């Protein structure tokens, strides 16, 4: 209790209340709570089981990624970005490489773009699988975790065959890709698409009409579209609230403009809609994969980029649609080999801010569901 008196956010009455003579209590959840997905600490102000307000305490995983970026060359910093959102490392790398390319005013050759899109979409599926498994586990369904991780394994195998790493892949380089697609890459991806679609039906069979799942998620953590925009929430969370906005369509990068896919949206902006949107997104990713694999052109995979990367003086903000939302990089170059400033605009960090709005008036158990549905990765929140 002593800790709680320090919080100005919750506007606590600091008079000598003890636990018993108070109808409100302050509960500390985390940082080691299993359903906070890492080291998130949430301080809850409760009236019985009802949540009156929350405050997130973050930073337990802060490694100073932005400071590191200023002290490394552009090339050296590339692997570091994988360590932010480590379940979607490929997307992080893509965003960084593209931003530096923009700063250098070069563009990856078409074949590299296709390889990048294939890898990124695989990564999106893998990230959503981790979300689904852990989110369902939080709510009490154990089976989806095993199903999702079993199927994610196949994606990680493709990653491993492509670049030798499964998690922090460092798959791309500034200017394109360093690895040519291995023999049978296309077949592997095609095989995965046909393998995965029935599995996706399997997930849905387990959850979509499951009465417990529906009761635990429908109407929980509602976020109105105007709240989403005011809070800067992006990604599936925004789309589940009915805002049809996806950077892959709005400001297409790589070869997304050649791809035919839909932006799934929800209606109610609740946890159930967010579930449906992510499931639908996985289907769309499969669609993109199937098209990309068919159309992958031949040619070089690396643009002409100097060995020593020294972008001209200037600054650039560029963002991509990562599995969790808008992942932006703001890089200031002073013309030297090291970035003068690297700013990462992490989707998880901004989305997590919506937690308080979403859980006020709900139950403690819903907090767990909402943290799960926000799909945060603490490595990215804290950087």
């Amino acid at each position, binding site marked *: 209790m002593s800790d709680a008196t320090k919080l*100005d*956010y919750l506007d606590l009455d600091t008079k000598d209340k003890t636990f018993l003579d108070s109808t409100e209590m302050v509960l500390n959840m985390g940082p080691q709570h299993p359903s906070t997905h890492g080291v998130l600490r949430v301080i809850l102000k409760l009236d019985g089981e009802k949540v009156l307000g929350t405050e997130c305490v*973050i*930073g337990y995983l*802060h490694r*100073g990624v*932005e*400071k590191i970026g*200023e*002290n490394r060359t552009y090339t050296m910093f590339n692997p570091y970005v994988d360590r932010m959102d480590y379940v979607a490392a490929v997307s992080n790398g893509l965003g960084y490489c*593209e931003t530096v390319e*923009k*700063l250098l*005013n*070069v*563009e*990856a*050759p*078409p074949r590299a773009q296709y390889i990048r899109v294939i890898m990124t979409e695989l990564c999106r599926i893998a990230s959503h699988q981790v979300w689904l498994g852990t989110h369902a586990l939080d709510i009490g369904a154990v089976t989806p975790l095993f199903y999702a991780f079993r199927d994610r394994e196949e994606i990680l195998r493709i990653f491993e065959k492509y670049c030798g790493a499964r998690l922090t892949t460092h798959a791309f380089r500034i200017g394109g890709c360093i690895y040519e697609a291995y023999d049978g890459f296309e077949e592997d991806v095609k095989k995965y698409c046909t393998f995965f679609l029935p599995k996706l039906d399997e997930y849905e069979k387990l959850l979509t009409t499951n009465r417990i799942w529906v009761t635990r998620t429908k109407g929980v953590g509602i976020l109105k579209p105007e709240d989403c*925009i*005011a*809070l*800067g*929430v992006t990604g599936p969370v925004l789309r589940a609230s009915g*805002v049809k*906005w996806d950077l892959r369509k*709005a*400001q*297409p*990068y*790589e*070869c997304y*403009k*050649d791809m035919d896919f839909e932006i799934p949206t929800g209606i109610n902006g609740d946890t159930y809609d967010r579930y449906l949107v992510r499931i639908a997104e996985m289907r769309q990713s499969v669609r993109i994969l199937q098209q990309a694999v068919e159309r992958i052109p031949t040619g070089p995979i690396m*643009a*002409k980029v*100097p*060995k*020593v990367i*020294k972008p*001209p003086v*200037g*600054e*650039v*903000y*560029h*963002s991509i649609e990562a599995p969790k939302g*808008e992942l*932006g990089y*703001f890089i*200031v170059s002073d013309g030297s080999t090291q970035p*003068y*400033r690297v*700013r990462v*605009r992490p989707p998880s*960090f*901004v989305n997590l*801010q919506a937690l308080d709005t979403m859980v006020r008036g709900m139950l403690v158990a819903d907090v767990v569901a909402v943290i799960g549905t926000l799909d945060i990765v603490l490595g990215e929140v*804290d*950087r």
Partner: protein
Amino acid sequence: MPEESKGPESVSPLAEGAKAPAEAASPDKPQAAPPAPAAGVKLPAAAASPAPESKPTEAAKPTTPAAAAAAAKPAAPAAAAKPAAPAAAAPKPPAAPAKPAGPVPEPWESELVAKLKQQYGSGIVEALSYLGQKYMTVDSSILPEILRRMRDEEGFDYCVDITAVHYPKREQQFDVVYVLYSFAHNQRIRVKTRIKDGEHVESAFSIWRTADWLEREVFDMFGIVFDGHPGLKRILLPEDWHGHPLRKDYDILQQDKEWVHINLGIESGQ
């Protein structure tokens, strides 16, 4: 990526009519051309072999475009010629020819900027476009007004990011950068302001709620105080930590030794 630059670019002609592609591009090219030799000379000295290799070939080109600007445009993206380029290159002529010289920020001319300049005069310090990305620097005294106006009247309803950059050698040491996006126009701009060390900035929390954590992070990392913020305190570092690590005078190995000693019971975190 050029696709992205295409977005904002295609919006500005809407506001400016046909003026932007034809007029804005050609006067800039002569400006862009002179620096070309300079950059070409500088680079071989500074960087090793690979850089000059690509530069001279490209640097040779601007001399022709300088004369016949529009014609040489498609030739500029020499290295990574892409199949989709013809379509993509057409709407972004200003960025492409600038490339060999090292892209130069061009003045950002649009109805919006003209309006603001008329109203605030020298309050709008500069409005530039770099690689197709638009940004303006405004005086810190009119910043809240500009930001509110951006949301209410110009449709920039989504505050993407708030961050800062430290330039210790300048008198106004900090750039506070607001990245704004408009869903209606599919346009992203940056509004910047320069402040001195210790100077406060008005909080944007009442304009965009997302500013809450973003400003706390800027405060945590740079020590910039936002007036009117509902609970300005550190967010990533411990609350009793001393120092603001993203300032340039904060060494990468530096840390709050006292804090580490008291809280972790070790001499150093290194």
